């Protein structure tokens, strides 16, 4: 009996030896799993230690908005916050506008304020759950060295992307009941954006429409984001005006392939055959704060892209690709700290009726914000055991006050009786 037990325990162990999704076929596995199990078409890829999946879900934003609108929605706190990591240093900056107070975490939502339970999830939300589940399954059961995940869900009806990203270690910790689902939500990042390809598309379209109506200077001032590019773009715009000779309206009849190639760069490819010209145009659009600016315009004599663009592949296949920017740990941590600190404050409503037996809220000072920054950083950086930094700086951009904590001092701020921050001279 003892031998038998040992044999079966060995078999159990062997069961767990092989990864279910080998790293060589990770993206294909994810696409196949979504297709096979839920019938959802997705695009998937791996960049560095980040796995990403892209899915189009029509009506998703509307359903999400329904969920959000059925619960309470606080106005965003009057704080602008940014966090960057460079030269082994975390720099956090905030700019306070108006009065704000710390959120009282003990205050429970009133019953009527809780979002109602839905009997059944709407199809777009179910699709999102399915893709998310597939992403989790594949990314957890692989031998690839992965650290982060990104899920981009595009709603073509709302012309918006919703981007979910997070750390795979957090997912594992939830599975092992080390952290709660609420903590996972606090560690994950959710952002909304206009689809970069659409922004670029729209920018190029408007530029071509305006081509015969404005002067070059007007076009440059409208579509170029930096005066340094004026000299590069001016001759190209002039040449384009000459080539098209007012026939640019015919270009809109054809489909324009586009592809995001960097975080803020999108290529838009336009064939010139509709205006009886040989070759093609390639616009490089820079995306900044949701707006597109022309970074470059190139004219090719042939329809094929030249060798220096070969790495982007044939424009015919661009619609089957999506841009996946790898996440790095410091950036992820900076964003998480900023998000956590932001959620700690809410605007102070002067007409707010004072609750019974409750103290009237005291407006938070810039030192309070800095203190929360440092304490949150201490907690987050310890959670991920991140030690590769020397200092942590917090700056109030409003009045220039600065606070700084070294990496050795930071663990002190994890205690409940954390030391008080002192202003730097």
């Amino acid at each position, binding site marked *: 009996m003892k031998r038998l*037990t040992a044999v*079966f325990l060995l078999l159990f162990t062997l*069961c*767990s030896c092989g990864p*279910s*999704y080998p790293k060589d076929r990770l993206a294909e596995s994810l696409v196949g799993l979504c297709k096979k199990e839920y019938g959802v078409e997705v695009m998937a890829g791996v960049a560095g230690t980040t796995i990403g999946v892209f899915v189009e879900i029509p009506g998703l934003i509307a359903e999400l908005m329904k969920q959000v609108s059925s619960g309470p929605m606080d106005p965003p706190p009057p704080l602008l916050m940014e966090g960057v990591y460079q030269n082994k240093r975390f720099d956090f900056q905030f700019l306070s506008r108006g009065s704000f107070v710390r959120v009282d975490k003990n205050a429970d939502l009133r019953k009527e304020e809780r979002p109602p339970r839905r009997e059944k999830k709407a199809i777009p939300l179910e699709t999102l759950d399915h893709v998310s589940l597939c992403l989790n399954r594949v990314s957890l*059961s*692989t031998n690839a060295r992965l650290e982060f995940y990104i899920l981009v869900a595009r709603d073509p009806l709302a012309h918006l992307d919703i981007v979910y990203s997070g750390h795979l270690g957090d997912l594992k910790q939830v599975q092992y009941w080390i952290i709660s689902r609420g903590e996972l939500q606090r560690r994950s990042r959710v952002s909304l954006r206009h689809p970069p390809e659409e922004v670029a598309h729209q920018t190029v379209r408007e530029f071509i429409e305006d081509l015969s109506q404005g002067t070059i200077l007007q076009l440059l001032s409208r579509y170029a984001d930096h005066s340094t590019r004026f000299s590069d773009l001016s001759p190209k715009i002039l040449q384009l005006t000459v080539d098209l000779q007012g026939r640019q309206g015919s270009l809109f009849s054809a489909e324009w392939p586009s592809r995001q190639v960097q975080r803020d760069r999108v290529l838009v490819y336009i064939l010139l055959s509709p205006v009886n010209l040989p070759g093609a145009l390639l616009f490089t659009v820079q995306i900044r704060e949701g707006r597109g600016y022309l970074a470059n315009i190139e004219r090719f004599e042939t329809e094929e892209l030249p060798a220096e663009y070969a790495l982007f592949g044939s424009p015919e296949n661009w619609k089957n690709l999506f841009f996946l920017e790898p996440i790095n740990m410091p950036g992820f941590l900076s964003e998480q700290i900023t998000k956590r600190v932001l959620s700690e404050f809410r605007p102070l409503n002067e007409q707010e009726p004072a609750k019974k037996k409750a103290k009237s809220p005291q407006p938070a000072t810039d030192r309070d914000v800095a203190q929360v920054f440092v304490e949150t950083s201490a907690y987050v950086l310890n959670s991920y055991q991140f030690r590769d930094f020397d200092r942590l700086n917090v700056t109030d951009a409003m009045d220039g006050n600065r606070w700084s904590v070294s990496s050795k001092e930071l663990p002190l701020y994890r205690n409940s009786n954390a030391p008080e921050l002192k202003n730097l001279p």
Partner: protein
Amino acid sequence: MKLFLRRVKVYIIDHKIAVGSALFVLVCFWLSWWGMSKMESFYVNMTIATLPLHILTWILGSIISAFIYVSLMFGMFSKSNRKQKTKSHFVNVRFSDVIGIDEAKEEAWEVVELLKDHARLKKVGGKIIRGLLMQGPPGCGKTYLAKAIATEAGIPFLSLAASDFVEIFVGVGASRVRKLFTDARRLAYSNGACIIFIDELDAVGRARSFSWMGGQETNSTLNALLVEMDGLQSEQENVVIIGASNAPEETLDPALLRPGRFDRKIYVDKPNLAGREKVLAYYMGKVQAESNIDIGRLARRTVAKSPADLENLIKEAALIASRNKHEKLTYDDLSEALERIELGIKHRKSMSDSERRMTAYHESGHLLVLYLLHPTDDVFKASIIARRGTLGVVYHMPREEMHSHDKNKLLADIKVSLAGYVAEKLVSGVTTTGVSGDFQNAMTKANAMVWRLGMGSKYLGDWGMLTANGSSTMLSQQVVAELNAETNAIFQSCAKEVEQLLTKERAILDRFASELLKKEELEYDEIEAIFAEHGKSRQWPSQSTA
């Protein structure tokens, strides 16, 4: 091959539970393996990683469920709350504290010496005694003696009532027995020896019944006890079992009484006169009592009393003394306590003069005959105050323990019983219903004399054993008629003799009746004085004065 298959078949039949369990485990393993092979690697890893936690949770859950179930249903299975493991020095009862049962003490002391010197016994090749059965009436000091053995031997003492083994569920009692012996062996291993004292042994030690009507639990408990006492045990430690029982020896299972189990039997009887004197002196020493109390006289009044009864008597007397605001216990307090225990509490009934007169004569008849004719009993009190459903009483006790009774004593008993009836008849010519109890006593004795004790004139032997269930189907009508005629003859003869005596001593009868009507109660000294006054004072062979 055929032979091999047969062997396999036999093996499976012989080990069906083991084989079945192994198959079950195999199927469980296979299902688990199959299920896990279908899982993704992370979840397989997670399952394996959390397996110890799940197993721990499962075990904890099972333990808690089993604990609750057992607590509710079985009263904690083999655990007995009453069981007490006691070190010998906690018992702290010395042999010097055991009083009044000298013979039992002597036998018990032998056991103590054996326990103390078991090494020498082993060297000689002897074996320590396994069991000691103490029998005797309740309250005679069996438990006390067992404690004294433990204290003197200086070994642990496990005390348990046999009823603690008894449970409604079959097997629970047996498991408690095994647990008890396991504990005892462990203590014996660490202390050299151990005593298990099982009180009221007859609760589990009754002869086994082999019927389908039940009793399996008692049987299995007794079987476990038999095996533990002298069965195939791998460990042989010096565990001595002392059993105590009030039940007759023949009611206990013969297997329990055979040598190797309870191989020593000590009969712990009620103390004799000397024993009672010692016991009374011991307990009197624990209370504040007058120094002039005649303990010898008190001992004669407490024939057939156990040490527990005597202890209770002193306690009761102390309560009465306290109620009577006596600073010290007096003989009167003791006497009142004894009467209260023996005769019951007085409760005066309103009776008519004629009824009181008849009662006085009835009791005087008893008193007179008892004093003048009875060869063994002493009269301590006569009363016409109602107690326990009787209108009057003559309190008498034998002067010494009587272990057998001769014909004269039995005839005297019959005469004493009939004296009330004869006195009523002499005085008023009619008799009352108060004689029914007397007649029952007299008839029982006369019947026993003729039917069972061969004290008749014609028939010898125990004719009573030939009657089954009260019917004399095995006896001829003639024999029955003649036996009954002899019984009646004894009755008539006694009645006649009593009538002659009472007629002759009518003056004393009237005197006692009038004294009783006047005083309601006559004490020993008053009775003696009246008889002395009439020149009838009795002289006992061994005792000149009471």
